[in-house]
């Protein structure tokens, strides 16, 4: 049962991250490799605010960290992705890889590679004689709320409509006057803030290291593939399931076993099924 909860937590974080990937993918049709590093960036920003600047309230630090990380995401998009948007997808991919390199090395240079402690408190609550970490509960609650809020707004708000329009056909959306740049910036902001939240949760659990985001990146990729690239619904459910299974694999085997198993599973799923489970039906002609 503990395993299940822990798996759900890991799964929630993976789902958060994968969700960010899916959001950006569905709008821009490219895999933003730098997204994994945003988790790390967000966590370090929170660290900076809380420890270095000494903001007394942890919640405030988190809040501002999310805002700042969101802006960082937007800024990255403007510098590294926007100029390449109408060029080639491969360029955007390479650019995101370059950004990921830059972010990782910057973090190593500024903060060093030894783990930093984000918080010395890691509160737990005990319910029905089982102990849970508060952050686990928070993440597990926030995720469905966010999911519902997001999907509702996709369906019922102007912005949501704009996002759907851009996702289905960017050129036409621009043609009918949707402010693509604004919407894309907003999406990056959302995705980056969520990643920051994930980073903070991770930071509370372990320490902060420059490469903390990378591992989750790879897992988020696996989920993205299984759920179908760009499928935001799929990654939320898939992420949770994946987290649970991953946790069991780690518990019974090892981290390596889990990684190997997941790659094999992804490959097998693709081999047999030929696409993601929630894949928007793309006609392969």
């Amino acid at each position: 049962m503990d395993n299940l909860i822990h798996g759900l937590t890991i799964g929630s974080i993976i789902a958060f991250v994968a969700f960010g990937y899916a959001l950006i993918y569905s709008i821009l049709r490219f895999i933003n490799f730098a997204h994994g590093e945003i988790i790390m960036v967000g966590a370090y920003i929170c660290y900076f605010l809380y420890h270095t600047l000494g903001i007394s309230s942890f919640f405030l630090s988190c809040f501002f960290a999310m805002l700042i990380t969101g802006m960082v995401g937007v800024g990255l998009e403007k510098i590294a992705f926007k100029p390449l948007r109408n060029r080639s997808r491969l360029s955007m991919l390479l650019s995101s890889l370059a950004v990921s390199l830059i972010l990782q090395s910057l973090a190593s240079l500024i903060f060093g590679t030894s783990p930093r402690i984000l918080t010395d408190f890691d509160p737990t609550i005990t319910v029905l004689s089982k102990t849970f970490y508060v952050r686990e509960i928070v993440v597990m609650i926030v995720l469905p709320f966010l999911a519902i809020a997001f999907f509702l707004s996709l369906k019922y708000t102007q912005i949501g409509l704009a996002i759907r329009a851009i996702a289905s056909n960017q050129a036409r959306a621009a043609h009918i006057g949707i402010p693509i740049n604004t919407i894309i910036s907003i999406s990056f902001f959302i995705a980056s803030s969520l990643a920051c939240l994930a980073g903070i949760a991770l930071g509370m659990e372990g320490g902060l290291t420059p490469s903390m985001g990378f591992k989750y990146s790879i897992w988020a990729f696996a989920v993205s593939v299984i759920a179908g690239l760009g499928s935001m619904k799929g990654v939320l459910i898939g992420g949770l399931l994946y987290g649970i299974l991953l946790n069991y694999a780690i518990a019974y085997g090892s981290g390596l076993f889990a990684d190997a198993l997941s790659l094999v599973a992804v490959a097998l799923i693709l081999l047999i099924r030929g696409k993601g489970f929630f894949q928007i039906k793309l006609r392969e002609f």
Partner: protein
Amino acid sequence: MDYLASVSAHILLYFIFIAGLGKYILGKSSVWSIGHIAFWGLGGLVVGSLTVDFGVNAWIALLASVLFGIIISFLIGLASLRLDGDYFVILSVSLSELIRVIAIEYRGPGGFNGIIRPTFFGVSLENDWLFIVLALCPFVIATIIITLRLEQLHLNRIFLLVKENEILAKSFRYNPVYYKILIFCIGSFFATLSGGLYSLFIRGTDPSTTTLYQGVLLFAISLLSGINTLKGVLLGALLFVAAPRMLEYIITAPGSATYSYNIIQLVYGILLLIVVLLTSRVPVYQK
């Protein structure tokens, strides 16, 4: 170890790798094998474990590693090349990480040690230069000959057709998936070969050569200079081997080796970003 020999060997080995990735995979197909370094690592891993743990003859270990590389690339290709290229990219990157992690788990971050070099018809290859001339050069020459020869076959035409226009290829009844898988396997063959030879050269494996960071750099270099001519491939190899050494020379940073490693990584990242932003305007790279 003789410094010049080491540099020469590195150049020759990366020449083979970049030939596989640049000339074949990027030049003759639309497959983006960003994690191609996986096969370099795989080559070293298989050669290392077979020779050190099982005492297999080095040549046979090399052969085995190449076969293994082909099989793995075939499976990955089969799973993902029927689909949109992004799926393949993910699998490619995941594979490279996986192999790196397996190598570290299996033998630690220092990799294998004590790989014994093979003999060449009885001649010991312990001397670096002897190894280069008798073991590396033949493979490099073979690579060059095979590459040039392949371009004269009708098969080459099909590869280019599939790369450029899949619908037209299907009209002519060529299954694009077959050809993409084939070219990917060929590219992986060269990568595994070069990785295996590398481990024979340094008498061990070095997992630090298999990080995604290195893989991405090699990918970028292959893309930028290794697609058209073999001279370009050589240039790419030279660049890849020389650049870090020159940078290390220039950036004599105070502090630990990790510090300069990170600075170099940062410089590479920035350079890569700049190059990508600039060359994106060149039509050749539009796809």
